[in-house]
């Protein structure tokens, strides 16, 4: 039932668009790494195309998009659409940043699994990604 060696969870932490606020993304990247996951931090100023390519190349279980520029309703849908186009639509997509409550339902309808707004606890985020990724592994192995 369980694999002899647990497969490591692979997470891409990405900064889409021109937004340079990377404090939160770096904290989450480090927390995920400390929790035993393989983390690929893309760095700043990524286009949606670059992010989708990284997710695919890195065979990621999850991607965390960090946006504090207000451009989330343009950039997140593009990332999600590109992942779908390239047949990678079971990757867990989470969003973090200054996201107004009114925008969250639309993001979720697009397929974003969770939106972590200011004040979210690190452990909550790590746990969410871990359980989502483990579910994905179980689905793949069954």
């Amino acid at each position, binding site marked *: 039932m369980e694999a002899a060696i647990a497969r490591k969870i692979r997470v891409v932490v990405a900064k889409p668009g021109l937004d340079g606020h990377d404090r939160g993304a770096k904290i989450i990247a480090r927390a995920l790494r400390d929790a035993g996951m393989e983390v690929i931090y893309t760095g700043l100023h990524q286009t949606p195309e670059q992010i989708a390519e990284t997710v695919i190349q890195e065979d990621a279980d999850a991607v965390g998009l960090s946006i504090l520029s207000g451009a989330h309703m343009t950039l997140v849908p593009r990332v999600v659409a590109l992942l779908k186009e390239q047949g990678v639509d079971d990757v867990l997509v989470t969003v973090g940043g200054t996201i107004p409550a009114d925008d969250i339902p639309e993001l979720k309808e697009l397929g974003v699994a969770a939106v972590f707004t200011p004040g979210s606890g*690190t452990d909550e985020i790590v746990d969410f990604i871990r359980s989502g990724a483990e579910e994905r592994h179980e689905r793949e192995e069954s």
Partner: protein
Amino acid sequence: MATEPRQKPLEDRETEFRTMSGQPIAPLYGPEEAPVDRAESIGRPGEYPFTRGPYESMYRGRLWTMRQFAGFGTVEETNERFHYLLDHGQTGLSTAFDMPTLMGYDSDHERSLGEVGREGVAVDSLDDMEQLFDGIPLGGVTTSMTINAPAAILLAFYVLVGEKQGVPAEKLGGTIQTDILKEYIAQKEWCFPIEPAMRLVTDMIEWCSRNMPRWHPVSISGYHIREAGSTAQQELAFTLKDGFTYVERALERGLDVDDFAPRLSFFFNAHVDFFEEIAKYRAARRIWAREMRDTYGAKREESMRLRFHAQTAGVSLTAQQPLNNVVRTSLEALAAVLGGTQSLHTNSFDEALALPTEEAVRVALRTQQVIAFESGVANTPDPLGGSWFVEKLTDEMERAAYEYFARIDELGGMVEAIRRNFPQREIADAAFTYQREVDERRRIVVGVNDFVQEDEPQTPILRIDPALESKQADRLAATRARRDGAAVEAALSELKRAAATEANLMPPIIDAARARATEGEMIAALQEVFGTYTESPVF
């Protein structure tokens, strides 16, 4: 976050107390803490080493400038907000530009999609700049502009708006941020590699020293370093070290320190650890004065006198129970005033999630006015001077800064330290440590990890109309249609030619701006010569 009741009863507090920087706080401070050389190290306001303030009378003579950062959408919306703020009693302007403008992209560039007008105002050309200041006489107000890598271009726009209004450059007063070192460290808005970017900074310092005696060509900043997660000690040390680096580059250019140093200005964070912030500002003044006189050979008092703008800490604002932010901002503003700031921006209570509404920014401005006109704290300089606690904290901040200076010097100076990711790693570590403290409830943030309220009503926030993006694209198209294309091409060629020499780039940038070359076109031209920059991030 969980909503368990407080785990510790009120009586059972910590046994150890520290400032946010980690400096231990004693159970009591008394006269034994007073420095033996108090006359020299504390001194008097307006006199070396300026610990107590850059001016003798401080706010008795003139209040700090109430200068609210503002900008969103197109120049029309921002011009309207400028007028609103001036009508409500603010005494100086401060301009927030959008991400494309900050990063050197025109509004119709593919990288600008979805970003136009969201974090600030979209400015692509001189035409935009003229409308931004419509109805605002530049000879009668000082303006701050928060822009760094493309700063020379925005300064050129501003000078030309003044020229059109009949205000010569030498009469223009204000500040442009320009502080590129802190971009590589913290704010992350860059266009070029470090060396050409530093050349542009020195060009601006040199050109302004000759042509704009009332202007601050750089605002050496710690605000962003702090927002990225540094401690107050790191903010102080990295900011001053950046400042020293600009001084060194200007001296290497052959400028006389007393010709440019009086117009260097600073920008610090006003965070919520009240006394530490006050100590930080006082230590900053003392350190700067000493180094300018003893290390850089300044002779004029104006060269030694550190003057700063402060902004209350954006990162301390919570999305939960936003009205609590009025309290935070008030305490932070008070610390900045007690620390002797020359200019102040107070955050709005709704800014954890969006740019401020009119109502929220009015309350923020009123906060400053209540402090200025009702509280009495402005009626004598440095009222906390001589406090055993504050003087001890000031000494400790100074000591911590010098420790960082030594470490940066060991690495070969600030530019080399940045290349090796030293300040970036310090910031990432401090940010992580702080977050763990909050996650583990060793540090309380009211409304977030304690005193939480379920089912809060939503606060209405400012929404940027997406239609503004196409409005701006139309403006840009109109500019391109109106201008003399050949003149623009010639000006951009000349800019590229000059960039490859050691010429000061302000004159060719002004010429290109006057011809209505856009910001994006000028940056792209310079990038052909200078290249671009990509960071190697550490987390």
